[in-house]
């Protein structure tokens, strides 16, 4: 699909991504020779032939990756109240796709439109961040202008290019299972490793900057660097997930599971885990629904995720009565707010060092 991995030699531009091809080639080999047979086995064991089809194997694998990195980066984004940035970058990534298609058509190249989408989204993300550093804050207006501006450029480039290319645009706009190539999955796996690794390495400064940027600056953290890293990570995730989720819906994967997790999580770390779990549930259920009923994958995933979000309200209603039955540990209800800690009777006054692990779920 989309000229992603065709070998066209000759121009210098084609020789640049040699390393890139080597990496994705390795990943493709693993997909074909390790993951594929494993999923075939799973299909047989579960008795679901759908898992045996290579295109569905790719779709599930892609969905699983997206549902890890989307909520992971989204958690920081949402709690910095920058959720709209993901939607903005998705729309400018569309311009990136259009740039790739345009260049290919005009200069007879065979660039992957995904590659140009990465470049355009990252550049836009950094430009928006520089603008914010200059102006002081994100504004609705400026994000709306970048969002529509990016999409406008995309639409111009698409229509300015010779007729044929607009054929595949739907797949980018609405997402598609069938068009996920092995190379796409390879790129997605690689991005998951990069994004997951970067967030793991910079978890503490990202958390500090997300929660209290001024205090982080006073504590001499390089706030500007981590804010820039944050927007670049967002660009990487948005473009990676665009293939399945579609330009219009990709932001949901960074926002909806996070919003659901934030309602019930007891700590930040737990909220990341719960958001990923919610994302995985939505992604796997969504892809399955999409296959079984022939409906859009992105839409199915988002509707499922919103279902999970709505379910958290029910969970919160039920939680107090469940707690009364002794099935949940005490604490964390809104009712005990003013009680100066009186609610957490089970928690001792002086936590021992062994309880200082980040997981807050070990008490009582």
């Amino acid at each position, binding site marked *: 699909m989309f000229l992603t991995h065709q070998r066209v030699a000759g121009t210098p531009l084609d020789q640049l991504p040699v390393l890139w091809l080597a990496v994705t080639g390795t990943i493709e080999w693993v997909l074909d020779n390790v993951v594929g047979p494993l999923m075939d086995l799973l299909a047989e064991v579960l008795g679901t032939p759908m898992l045996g089809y290579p295109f569905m194997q790719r779709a599930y694998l892609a969905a699983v990756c997206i549902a890890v990195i989307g909520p992971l980066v989204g958690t920081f984004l949402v709690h910095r109240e920058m959720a709209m940035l993901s939607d903005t970058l998705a729309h400018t990534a569309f311009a990136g796709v259009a740039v790739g298609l345009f260049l290919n058509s005009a200069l007879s190249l065979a660039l992957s439109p995904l590659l140009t989408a990465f470049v355009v989204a990252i550049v836009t993300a950094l430009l928006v961040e520089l603008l914010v550093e200059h102006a002081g804050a994100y504004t609705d207006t400026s994000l709306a202008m970048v969002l529509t501006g990016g999409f406008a450029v995309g639409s111009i480039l698409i229509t300015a290019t010779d007729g044929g290319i607009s054929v595949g645009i739907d797949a980018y706009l609405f997402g598609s299972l069938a068009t996920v190539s092995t190379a796409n999955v390879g790129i997605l796996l690689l991005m998951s490793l990069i994004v997951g690794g970067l967030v793991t390495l910079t978890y503490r400064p990202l958390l500090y900057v997300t929660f209290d940027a001024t205090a982080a600056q*006073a504590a001499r953290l390089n706030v500007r660097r981590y804010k820039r890293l944050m927007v670049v990570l967002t660009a990487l995730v948005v473009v990676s997930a665009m293939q399945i989720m579609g330009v219009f819906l990709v932001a949901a994967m960074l926002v909806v599971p996070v919003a659901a997790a934030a309602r019930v999580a007891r700590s*930040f770390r737990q909220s990341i885990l719960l958001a990923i779990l919610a994302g995985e549930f939505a992604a796997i259920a969504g892809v399955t629904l999409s296959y079984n009923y022939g409906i859009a994958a992105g839409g199915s995933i988002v509707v499922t995720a919103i279902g999970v979000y709505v379910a958290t309200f029910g969970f919160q209603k039920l939680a107090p009565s469940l707690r009364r039955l002794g099935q949940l540990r005490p604490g964390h209800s809104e009712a005990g707010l003013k009680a100066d800690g009186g609610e957490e009777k089970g928690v001792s006054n002086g936590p021992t060092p062994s309880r200082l692990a980040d997981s*807050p779920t070990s008490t009582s």
Partner: protein
Amino acid sequence: MTPAASKTDESTDSLISVRNVSFRYGDVPVLDSVSIDVEPGAFLGLVGPNGSGKSTLLELMLGLRRPDVGTVSLFGEPAAAFDDGERIGYVAQDATEAGREMPITVREVVRMGRYPKRLVGRFAAEDKRAVVDAMEQVGIADLATRRVGRLSGGQRQRVFIARALASGADLLALDEPTVGVDAESREEFYELLHDLNANGLTVVLIEHDIGVVTTYATEIACLNRQLYFDGAPEAFVETDALAAAYGSDQHVLHHDH
């Protein structure tokens, strides 16, 4: 956990030294030739009308901004170049609002105090000890696993103080920390600041409640673009600096705490 005042005896004896500093936002002058020193162990209360440049002065003191004119030194170094983040604790103006929706626990916030030392890698025993000690010192150890956004305003302020203590800060800077905190908690909060200061922690505080400042601070600076007063609280209530700074007949309301 008690900060060692002797650590600050470096090139100058002032912990913060602001010299002839002017600052403007674009065309708007905010500070005009301000000079002020903060000695180790001081409790400085910064007062002045809204838009008088208090927050800007505090940010300049901490090296978060650079002055257009003049110099600021912090722990004897140029403030902007000073990079020993764990010696500075900062409670920002909107800290009471921070994290209201964010699912983050008291312990997760207090642990941030150790981040300047430990940005990556496992927390060592001393890091964990410092976090526990800090929470105990401000009386929030029993709230460790609670979400910060679900605490009362007074409790939440203690979390930010604990974060500064966990880092072993010598300097605690607070920008109107008790906005939206009820009167009783506010008083308890200032008692806590008073105790910490008595143990050697240097405190710089912006507070709009002049009664509170004159009760707890050991030094008052009254600001409105220029410095109108810098001295002991007893002297401050005797002068007409406040009226001059506010440009009207303001009286010092003396709350009996």
